[in-house]
């Protein structure tokens, strides 16, 4: 399976603030990868670097083997880009914008675009600037699908969408990418939406990648453990114990380890719980467990 996205040793600063140091990751062909992170961890920054709209302090990214700084038109035609907030050329109406884009993309297929447009209650002469965020999201998605790209890069696709439009977007996208085998690299604040969509997740923390694993691994193996902690002893975080917390005689910790290993790790801190419960997590709870609440 070939590599579609490759980022090597990306280091970037905004002023003196470090965003990442030596960030490395790859996305294989046909994978749907979600980039998850709290606000300010640099999700949009990565999207900008990937598309050549931001020169990192050091390091390089490659799309289909081409340096992101000098993407050829042929490679750009293979990449569908959705900007944060479903930004589009808002002075066009839905007919004009389809006509405009179709001239540039060699594999243009207008059917998915018109299929989506027909679902919306907009006239063909209505300008994008007068549409709701949800309607614009459908236009943006329709245009990307019509491009028929091999790679879809979607930056915060759920931003500003109500639950109905979010669901419509996710369902349509999922059906499209699973039937066509496209590669998708996406970010979103709504992690519930990602869970239904992504094969792999990269979880960003401030300055680094915290985790890059398959969604199945995360939701299947990462668990929350609650235990009684009679003397309010403190449990320190380790590489295996994420965000331990003790409050009012009860402790909580997140880990990929099995129950007995977690118990052993807790005991090393002098805590001797008489009761420990493990809880399976959805992706959102796992994300909170990995990155902390604040």
């Amino acid at each position, binding site marked *: 399976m070939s590599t579609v996205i490759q980022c090597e040793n990306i280091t970037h600063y*905004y002023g003196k603030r470090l965003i990442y140091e030596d960030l490395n990751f790859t996305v294989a062909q046909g994978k749907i990868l979600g980039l998850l992170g709290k606000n300010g961890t640099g999700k949009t920054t990565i999207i900008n670097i990937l598309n050549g*709209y931001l020169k990192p302090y050091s390091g390089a990214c490659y799309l289909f083997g081409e340096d992101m700084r000098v993407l050829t038109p*042929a490679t*750009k035609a293979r990449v569908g880009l959705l900007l944060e907030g479903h*930004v*589009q050329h808002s002075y066009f109406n839905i007919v004009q914008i389809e006509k405009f*884009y179709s001239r*540039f993309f060699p594999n243009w297929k207008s059917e998915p675009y018109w299929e989506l447009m027909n679902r919306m209650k907009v006239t063909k002469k209505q300008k994008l600037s007068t549409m709701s965020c949800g309607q614009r999201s459908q236009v943006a998605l329709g245009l990307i699908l019509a491009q028929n790209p091999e790679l879809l890069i979607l930056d915060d696709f759920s931003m500003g969408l109500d639950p109905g439009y979010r669901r419509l977007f996710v369902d349509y996208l999922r059906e499209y990418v699973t039937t066509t085998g496209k590669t998708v690299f996406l970010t979103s604040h709504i992690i519930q939406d990602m869970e239904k969509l992504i094969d792999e997740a990269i979880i960003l923390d401030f300055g680094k990648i915290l985790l890059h694993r398959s969604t199945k691994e995360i939701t299947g193996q990462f668990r929350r453990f609650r235990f009684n902690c009679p003397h309010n002893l403190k449990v320190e975080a380790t590489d295996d114990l994420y965000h331990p917390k003790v409050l009012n005689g009860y402790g909580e910790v997140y880990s990929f380890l099995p129950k007995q290993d977690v118990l052993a790790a807790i005991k090393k801190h002098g805590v001797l719980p008489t009761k420990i419960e493990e809880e399976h997590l959805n992706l959102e709870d796992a994300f909170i467990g990995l990155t902390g609440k604040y």
Partner: protein
Amino acid sequence: MRWLLAGLAGVFVAIVPYLVLSLHSKFRFAGKAHLWAVIAEKDVNMISQLQYLPLVAGLMLGLFQFIPEMNKKSFKLTLHLPHPEKLTVIKMMLFGFVSLSGIFVTTGGLLLALMRFSLPTAIIGAWLIAGLPWYLAGLTAYLLAAWVCIEPSWKQRAINGIVSGALLAVFLRTSGSFGYMYFTPGLVAVCLLVILFPFYSVFRFKEGVPE
């Protein structure tokens, strides 16, 4: 954009009969011989009302074309089109430059052609020399507006705005007939040099210079 261009063309077309009729009206009141003498002796330019019009047209077209591109950075989508980036920017600027030039040449030519019925070639030639910097100011203003709009940083944008104002002032220092007689090639050179400025803004945009 089409409506703006049509509006600008309409204004420039409408001003032709206005200036011609105004000239004829002055002839009727003052007499042709007297008015010719005043024009020649006092260097009166009867089309000086045009002085700032190309400048305003250039600025309006530049702002109307490039502000929507920078709105929420949709210019990223333009640069993402599978088309050579520099060629995309050249085509965008050529659109405005050629449209403005077309309006200026057509209406300016029409004005001079109609005035040839009432004025000697020497006076029309002098007015043409006087008017050329105004039209060049219009074209330069268009390019400078693109330079300012595409620039990603607000601080640099303000600096670009000040530099643009200073540059444009050079084109409009005088409406006298022979004020720019020897410097017109210099103004053409400035206008051509300014074509490069928006490319620097595009470079900074691609570098991801923060706002």
